[in-house]
């Protein structure tokens, strides 16, 4: 696909014989925000680091703004916010930002950027004495100060307080309004839901779902009914009583999920059937709620509930 800000096709990367990225392909449209989601160890950071030129691919092709990742011409055009670190511990916050600004031909005003990210108070504080959240915000400032066309943000709001998280989100939204492309790696599904135009869910090095947030959350049923009750109730009996096209399951034990007929919203008949079935089984339905699917539901459905190492 031509015209993508980032174009990854059939990417493969193995570490000591284990494939951590397995035939992964994704495209990012210019001027949009793409959220790369996936459990720990899914291959997100490896993928992003190959795009940034830190690692080489075993197979597949990567084009960043139409260029190979290690092309030096790319350096001024991209901004990178790594997951942690990346600043001289002995330089002051403001000095570090001014230093990186000095690498760029037309940088943003570093002092203005410090103020907007709430760092003006600590501009004269050594990097190693900043709090984790302040280091994160400086790292974000370092990624954007050179006025790049494409920024990679690796978990930009991890560990931030709500104010700082909103300041970060506002910056990402302003970047998009001004035509900057953003590739966002995140664990926070509400962050992806709010910021991303497109979402790619990665697991075991492969893309397991891709689309807009709306496409992913509206895929399958849009209406759900959840409740907690006695574990081990006869779900088949409930399915027979429900209107045709409904789905019902118990997962995990004691947590029940009912989806509306053929993807439609939960209707009064479905609700009445569920409560009647509970009554038949002499079981209470607790914490009963009707909701549409969130990105988190989609994510857990795709990648499972098992904890990752």
């Amino acid at each position: 696909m031509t015209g993508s800000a980032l174009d990854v096709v059939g990417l493969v990367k193995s570490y000591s014989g284990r494939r951590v990225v397995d035939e992964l392909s994704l495209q990012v449209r210019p001027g949009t925000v793409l959220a790369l989601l996936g459990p720990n160890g899914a291959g997100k950071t490896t993928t992003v680091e190959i795009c940034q030129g830190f690692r080489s691919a075993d197979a597949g092709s990567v084009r960043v703004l139409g260029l190979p990742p290690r092309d030096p011409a790319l350096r001024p055009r991209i901004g990178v916010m790594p997951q942690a670190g990346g600043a001289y511990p002995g330089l002051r916050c403001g000095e570090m930002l001014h230093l990186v600004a000095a690498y760029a031909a037309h940088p943003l005003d570093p002092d203005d950027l410090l103020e907007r990210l709430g760092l003006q108070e600590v501009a004269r504080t050594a990097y190693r004495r900043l709090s984790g959240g302040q280091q994160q915000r400086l790292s974000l400032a370092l990624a954007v100060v050179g006025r790049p066309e494409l920024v990679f943000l690796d978990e930009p709001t991890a560990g931030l307080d709500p104010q700082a998280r909103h300041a970060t989100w506002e910056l990402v939204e302003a970047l998009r309004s001004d035509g900057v492309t953003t590739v966002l790696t995140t664990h926070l599904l509400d962050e992806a839901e709010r910021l991303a135009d497109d979402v790619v869910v990665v697991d075991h090095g492969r893309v397991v779902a891709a689309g807009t947030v709306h496409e992913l959350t509206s895929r399958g049923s849009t209406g759900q009914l959840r409740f907690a009750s006695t574990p081990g109730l006869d779900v088949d009996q409930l399915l027979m009583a429900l209107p045709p096209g409904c789905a019902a399951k118990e997962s995990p034990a004691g947590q029940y999920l009912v989806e509306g007929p053929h993807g439609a919203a939960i209707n009064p008949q479905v609700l009445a059937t569920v409560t009647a079935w509970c009554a038949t089984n002499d079981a209470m339905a607790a914490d009963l709620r009707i909701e549409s699917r969130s990105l988190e539901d989609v994510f857990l459905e795709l990648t499972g509930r098992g904890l990752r190492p």
Partner: protein
Amino acid sequence: MTAWAPGALVPRPGAAPLPRMLAAQTVAELKLVLRNGEQVLLSLVIPLGLLVVLVTVPFIPVDGPRADFFVPGVLALAVMSTAFTGQAIGVGFERQYGVLKRLGVTPLPRSVLLLAKTLAVLAVELLQVTLLSAVGLALGWDPRGHVLAVVALVVLGTAAFSGLGLLLGGTMRGLTVLAAANLLWFVLLVLGGVVFPISAFGGAAAALELLPTAALSSGLRDVLVDGVGLPLQSLVVLAVWAVLSLGAASRLFRWE
């Protein structure tokens, strides 16, 4: 926090002119060295203290005036401290903290980064030589020889020690670098003709002369004490160390 004005973040990528990057990076590298207490201790406080003690307290016997023997040795120590020990430790921790990795995705070329580090080392050395010479002269030092021969020795010595420092700092973990660099500093201080004449080591002296610290201290003594015009053996030993260490560093250096 005020909202972003539309258009404030419109991309306008471009690399700054190389001289501007070099100037900014050199200033930053210098600040990092001069603010780091351990580096200042290693490059300035210890050499100055050693010089004063060695010249004024006669516990190590030497031939001729004490200042004439010890100033060249301490100058060699100062060059080693800055170019080797300081650089190795600095680079080791910069790698550990992900600084070099981050700089690798900015427009700053690696060659400019290394040049800035070299300029910062030379600036610190200029400060060291000035202070040590002033203290030496106050203690009765009577230097001979040509200043160009001294410059040649210091430049080649800096190249050799920088190569070794980048090799050590660029291949091992931060704490390993710290331990190894300080240990080597001490070993070379003892065996490198800084505090004892190399002749004190008897049969091993010829082999010790091949150490970079010994080559630099002996060369500086040949020039500054005996007025030798071209201390060929020392220059050759330092040049070989420079070629080998810089060659190995450029092959083995890891940026993260």
